[in-house]
């Protein structure tokens, strides 16, 4: 059995994964090198979160080999919907949960830990919110708080489940910039996203899921292809390219040629003149 290479952080080979005996993904072959920035895309229920959490060793492994390089510190940012918002906790207290292992038998955090939390919160631009209850924050601020909880561990591998869901365009832009900055600092980032246009098309590498497996793995220009997207989403998709930007648009089922009957099937369309995009 091959083991993980020195230039690899994660290696999934012939993997079948799931929960409680139900297979969610099969025949998964994915390798991740240190310093990559990867997006996992696919429709709801395609196994994006399962694949992401496989890097935490959580789903049941039914076949294949799943390895994460030893001594890898992993930070995980969940979907904010899973959190109990009625819980009385401040931003700083959430961030400090990430370092619970330090002085684990004592209920309180040390001054050094609190300083570290404040530094991370400042890095994310929310240090002024440290004493605010988390439920009083906006979606973007909450997302950054959970990012702080992950970053306080100084992770090598940062996993984010839908980090831009439910936030406005400006916040999405800021979160993506922060992730890009972390990635530039050497942190490997893997995220899931539903947002093909605002997020996925801007990432250097995408993994597309559908039909319970990996349909494509590569740069957006290779993955965001009509045939792959139609297999993944079960619906015809139009891919429009404008310069370096890629837009994916669903084609209504009833549209002529949607399934290639009368007109050529949807494919990559190049647009010569397109409106300026300063919102993304």
């Amino acid at each position: 059995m091959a083991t993980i290479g020195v230039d690899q952080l994660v290696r999934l080979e012939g993997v079948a994964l799931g929960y409680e005996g139900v297979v969610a993904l099969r025949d998964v072959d994915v390798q991740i090198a240190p310093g990559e920035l990867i997006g996992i895309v696919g429709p709801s229920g395609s196994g994006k979160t399962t694949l992401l959490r496989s890097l935490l060793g959580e789903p049941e492994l039914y076949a294949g080999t799943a390895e994460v390089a030893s001594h890898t510190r992993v930070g995980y940012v969940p979907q904010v919907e899973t959190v109990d918002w009625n819980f009385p906790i401040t931003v700083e207290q959430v961030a400090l949960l990430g370092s619970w292992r330090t002085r684990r038998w004592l209920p309180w955090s040390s001054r050094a830990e609190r300083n570290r939390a404040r530094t991370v919160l400042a890095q994310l631009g929310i240090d002024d919110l440290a004493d605010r209850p988390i439920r009083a924050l906006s979606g973007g601020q909450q997302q950054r708080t959970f990012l702080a909880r992950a970053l306080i561990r100084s992770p090598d591998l940062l996993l984010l489940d839908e980090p831009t869901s439910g936030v406005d365009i400006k916040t999405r832009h800021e979160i993506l910039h922060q992730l890009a900055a972390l990635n530039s600092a050497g942190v490997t980032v893997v995220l899931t996203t539903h947002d093909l246009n605002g997020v996925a098309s801007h990432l250097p590498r995408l993994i597309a899921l559908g039909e319970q497996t990996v349909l494509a793995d590569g740069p957006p220009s290779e993955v965001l292809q009509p045939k792959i997207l139609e297999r993944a989403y079960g619906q015809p998709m139009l891919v429009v390219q404008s310069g370096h930007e890629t837009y994916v648009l669903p084609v209504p089922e009833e549209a002529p040629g949607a399934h290639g009957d009368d007109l050529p099937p949807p494919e990559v369309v190049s647009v010569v003149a397109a409106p300026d995009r300063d919102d993304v």
Partner: protein
Amino acid sequence: MWSLRRIATMFEPFEFGFMQRAMIAATLVGSVTAAVGVFVILRRLAYIGHGLAHSIFGGAVVSFTIGFNFFLGASIWGAFSVFLINQAARRRQIGGDAAIGIVTTAAFAIGIAVISRARSFTRDFEAALFGEILGITNQDLYVTTGMVILIALVLFLLWKPLVFITFDNDVAESYGISVRWVESIFSLALAATVVAALQVLGVTLIAAALVIPPVVARMLTDSFPRMFSIAVIIGALTGFIGVYVSWFVDVSSGATVVLVQSAVFALALSWGVVESRRGLRAARRTERLAGLERSLND
């Protein structure tokens, strides 16, 4: 002006050994049920607290019948109930609430069945149902104190993982917390809390002591450490005051403790309503002034 006689009457309950023991026990039990209750209500487990109290009643009755140590018998019974609930709840088809309902009701029914066979138990039956705090012996008090210290120690040592799990259970495992292990230990601590509270409050009133002080504390603060401290203080004070007041009003001590807690809850609720109305009025005033300023500027 208060007469010396009236002042002496106020200190009357402290003159009797059984009242001293009762007040100490109620203060200890009030604080520990509130401390555990904070995690119980935030994890939305109020139902398990109620169920475990009934389940442990079965263990208490069986212990009386066979002449086994009450605390030990009830604790073993409680731990076994927790184990069965955890095993059943892990099966997706059953679910947590159904598992609690089945196991705790069955364990309670065993207690009822034992009582119906040995009818001489009426007094013990009532004691377990409604508490018998005035009958606490020195030995009971030592055991209760030991259990309270043990539970407090568990909460102290498991504080960080417990807070994590309570806040964000779904993610705790990925941060290296053994959720199953921590939940099992907490369930045992909860069972021990119920056993410790059984003699003071009785099966029927334990759930209230687990829930009311934390709920009041939650209404007063948005900080978890502060909520915990406030809940423990309310639990301890209402425990003490409840027993103290019961001396004068000649009402069951367990019931008085819960009634005092309910009164504190009603006060907190009224205060919350007043505060929110005050906030609403202030916001309307600010908005009116801002509107006036805008119209002047225009």
